[in-house]
């Protein structure tokens, strides 16, 4: 089971999912109307480290975060 959190302006409660990698997460979120429009502009972190590949395996207890476009300052 992994936990998926949506940060900043994405108004969505966290999900708990049984998935093995980010490819599977992509498939799930593309079907989710609240989130699908955000995917193009979101960065992804696994356990608070930004990732650049869909292939890294996920393990039980991992935390995945979706980060929409930022504007600090």
């Amino acid at each position, binding site marked *: 089971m992994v936990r998926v959190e949506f940060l900043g302006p994405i108004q969505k409660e966290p999900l708990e999912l049984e998935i093995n990698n980010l490819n599977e997460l992509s498939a799930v979120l593309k079907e989710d109307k609240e989130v699908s429009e955000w995917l193009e502009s979101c960065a992804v972190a696994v356990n608070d480290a930004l990732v*650049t590949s869909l292939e890294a395996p996920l393990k039980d207890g991992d935390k995945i975060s979706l980060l929409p476009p*930022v504007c600090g*300052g």
Partner: protein
Amino acid sequence: MLQLYDGALDVPTLLKEWHEEEASSNYGAYIPFVGTVRSEDGIDGLSFDIYEPILNSWFASWQKKAEEQGAIIKMAHSRGDVMLHESSYIAAVFSPKRRVALEFIDSFVEDFKASAPIWKYDLKEGKRVYAKERSTAIKGSGLLA
């Protein structure tokens, strides 16, 4: 050093404290950057969300870069609401050398704008509206699309 505050920053106090902390560290240049909420588009202020775990690791990577050049950085940012003409952001570099300090504050502030996990909202007629048009997708975004 990274400091987060609820609401507006106390600019004079932070600038003074940071200056005092490094008063005998033998740095020749101290350059703070202070960001203040401007009145435009009829906003009453701005509001900020911060995701601290990734902000902390982003900041730590810049601290390391600074250290490699004999410099140090400090930063303060607001959480929540900051009204017109109040300040929400201060970044500062201390360095033995002027050129290092001038170049470092520029690249640090620009990468902050592009990468720090902070989300900005306009406060307008009692609502909190995501500043989508002024926001920047973090490098590598779109992985799941």
